């Protein structure tokens, strides 16, 4: 098969969790897995299936994944070969530095091209800067390698755990490659820990468990509903507004910020439900990524319930080592004056790393700085007035949650503008300011209807139906979140649905199916290139 034919095949059968291809892929991969005899052949099949998934999702990036897997496996063995702990740590630091270099090389090449081009222009005034930038980023890579931020962090966590002696080095390349490239985690996480995922992947004696698989399927259905029926329908509005930010002001911008806040949550938590459910079908338990963060009453709570696998990674591998290292005491001149562990400064560093991890533009740095400011501000407030009551009254709780959500929503304006190709920090700041201009409710409504008509036949009736559908699905998804948080006390929503009596259970199944189907058509079955928001990180 020629390269062109292969390219056309992958273009005609795009792979994403919300694609037609995945609907065929998953039952086939799981069916064959359980039909195969128990033994290494199952791991081999799962690895081949994972690479097949990745190849169809990002054909040109598979080579980067393979290279990263081999390199990090060798670095793990190298780190473990150190005899003394200090020696192991030095080897680990070397390995981490190499992996971070690889991440920067493949993820931030456009950023470096931007930085380097003025210097080269100074050396050679005749240089065509645009052609140079294009050539430089094109030479290094074929674009931001899919999932590189996620699997690099997985590999870094593995290296640190190996050097600490928390997990033994994985000597089998097959098992290690599956750990890094497992289809359910490779593109957008959750960032799994070796100590938890590797033993599960190594276990090739599992039997198919219909009950677990059914729970996995219901969880996937909930995830698809969040993604297709809620997040993707909200995209129609947020995409129209943020795609032409300068044209809007006042309530429209506030509404778009609110819509994006909801879209981001339902998109990413929907994704997490899909992959956690898919892995569950194979009998594999992935770490939770979200625990109803929009009911948090402070930023500490929000960050312990939002993108948990990344937050806990940053806490375990950056924040805690920084605090314990008492790095501020080693600073020249001011170091001697420092007496307390560097909690707040380490928090700042962690959030800045989080910002840079999300993207290479100033918008993400500002977003990271804002999160640091909110979190540190909260810490200082607690120090000044004392920690609040553990169980405040309902109005206080609602008020605190509202404050957290408003601050979070406004900070996400930078995050969303950062997703636009030419989105700059000034454009985001201007959009924030313009929210305070008065715009009549009729104008906001007109903007909403017009945006909803984008890409649809310009029938106001269809736009109104679409708005009603979006609001209905949003209300349902939010209600489900509320039930999970307060009634099930953070328990398994899928198990909760399966525990309902027959009539309401089937009503929920039907709603999920129809909502997912309508959302699936709204994204043209994934053929229009629609993906998950976090697929770009």
């Amino acid at each position, binding site marked *: 098969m020629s390269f062109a034919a292969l390219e056309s095949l992958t273009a*005609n059968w795009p792979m994403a969790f919300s694609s037609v291809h995945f609907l065929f892929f998953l039952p086939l991969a799981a069916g064959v897995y359980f039909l195969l005899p128990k033994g290494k052949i199952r791991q081999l099949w799962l690895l081949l299936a994972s690479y097949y998934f990745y190849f169809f999702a990002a054909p040109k990036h598979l080579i980067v994944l393979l290279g990263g897997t081999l390199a990090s496996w060798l670095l793990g063995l190298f780190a473990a070969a150190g005899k003394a702990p200090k020696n192991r740590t030095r080897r680990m630091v070397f390995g981490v530095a190499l992996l971070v270099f690889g991440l920067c090389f493949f993820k931030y090449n456009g950023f470096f091209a931007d930085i380097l081009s003025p210097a080269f222009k100074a050396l050679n005034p005749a240089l065509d800067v645009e052609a140079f930038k294009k050539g430089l980023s094109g030479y290094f890579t074929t674009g931001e390698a899919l999932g590189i931020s996620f699997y690099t962090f997985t590999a870094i966590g593995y290296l640190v755990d190996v050097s600490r002696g928390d997990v033994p080095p994985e000597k089998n390349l097959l098992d290690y490659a599956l750990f890094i490239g497992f289809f359910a985690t490779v593109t957008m996480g959750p960032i799994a820990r070796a100590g938890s995922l590797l033993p599960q992947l190594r276990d090739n004696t599992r039997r198919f468990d219909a009950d677990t698989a059914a729970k996995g399927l219901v969880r996937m259905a909930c995830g698809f509903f969040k993604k297709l029926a809620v997040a993707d329908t909200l995209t129609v509005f947020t995409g129209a507004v943020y795609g032409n930010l300068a044209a809007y002001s006042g309530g429209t911008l506030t509404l778009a910020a609110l819509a994006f806040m909801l879209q981001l949550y339902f998109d990413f938590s929907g994704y997490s439900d899909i992959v956690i459910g898919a892995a569950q079908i194979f009998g594999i338990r992935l770490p939770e990524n979200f625990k109803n963060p929009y009911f948090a009453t402070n930023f500490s709570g929000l960050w312990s319930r939002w993108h948990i696998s990344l937050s806990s990674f940053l806490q375990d591998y950056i924040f805690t080592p920084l605090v314990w290292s008492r790095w501020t005491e080693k600073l020249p001149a001011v170091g001697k004056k420092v007496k307390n562990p560097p909690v707040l400064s380490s928090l700042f560093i962690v959030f800045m790393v989080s910002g840079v991890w999300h993207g290479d533009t100033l918008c993400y740095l500002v977003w990271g700085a804002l999160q640091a400011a909110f979190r540190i501000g909260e810490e200082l407030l607690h120090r000044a007035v004392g920690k609040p009551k553990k169980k405040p009254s309902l109005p206080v709780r609602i008020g605190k949650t509202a404050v957290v959500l408003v601050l979070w929503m406004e900070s996400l304006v930078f995050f969303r503008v950062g997703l636009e190709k030419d989105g700059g920090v000034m454009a985001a700041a201007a959009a924030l300011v313009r929210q305070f201009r008065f715009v009549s409710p009729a104008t906001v409504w007109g903007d909403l209807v017009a945006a909803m008509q984008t890409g649809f036949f310009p029938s106001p009736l269809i736009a109104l139906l679409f708005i009603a559908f979006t609001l209905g699905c949003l209300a349902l998804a939010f209600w489900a979140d509320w039930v999970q948080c307060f009634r099930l006390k953070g328990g398994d929503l899928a198990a909760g649905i399966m525990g309902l009596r027959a009539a309401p259970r089937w009503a929920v199944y039907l709603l999920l*199916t129809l909502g997912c189907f309508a959302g*699936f*058509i709204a994204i043209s*079955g994934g053929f229009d290139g629609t993906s998950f928001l976090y697929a770009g990180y």
Partner: protein
Amino acid sequence: MKKILRAIIILLIPILLYYGLFLRFEPNNFFGLRAETPSGAVFGAIRQYRENPSASVIVGDSRTAHLDMDRVEQLTGRRFSNLAFGGASLKEELDLLDWLLKHYPEINEVVLGSSFYTMNAAYNFDRFSTIETALANPFAYLTSKSYNLEAMQNLIFWLQGEKLGGGQDETEDPANYKWADFTTPTGYEVSLRGEIGNYLEKIAPYTEKWEPNTKQYERLLELIDSCAEKGIRFVVVFPPMHPAVREYDVEARGIDAGMAPLLAGLAASPATLLDYELTSPPDFAEDQYFDGFHLDYQRGLPEWTEMLCEELR
């Protein structure tokens, strides 16, 4: 396991029922399940072209899609493949043309059907990527938002008692014309034939937001230049429209003034410009038009086909 499969099958029933409706009302008869395929159904045309490519091609919207190609061949003495499809936007026409010129280097003549309507930035549909994918993967067609919406639109029309399809059926005996008083979307109180008055309302959501699609227009000029360099004859045709559309929509909204520089640019380009829409409208009678944009298949289209082929010859 049986329980899971049973539940999945039960939940699939409403989706299968929906697809029953979809197959009845989808606009292209993609799977060939219906007896009649509407003229201007893009998939059939591309499939035919793949099987039997020609050096002369026509790309455009429904106004060029309904040409009688046997008659065109008779009048011009060469075979044209008509790849025009209903509702095509300028972007889609150019995407299709790019694809044709890339895959079929034997093409030496291009006729591009255009209009003030397709030159509109507010009318910027983008279905060609879906078309290309759907030809290789029918699921892309089944799940396409555009075609599903069109199918639902057709269902609504059908429920309202309208005929589906087009082309051969676009003719009406003048004895059956129904005249009525209309207030046009631009505020004129006029007496018009039903098809014309309704048409003004149908196009208003796009024409009220009319502005030149500069990006696609520049792309068109670049394509014309590139074809000229390769020795490919390029003809841009603006088919005729009903005088009421010109008077009560185009002129009333000042679209003709917006179109003037675009037409001037095309006239100055290496392409041949045949403008029957705004600058040189033919003197057709009321019964030669089927609706606002389309000529009557029996009384208007044959005469215009002769005029067009005279120029193409």
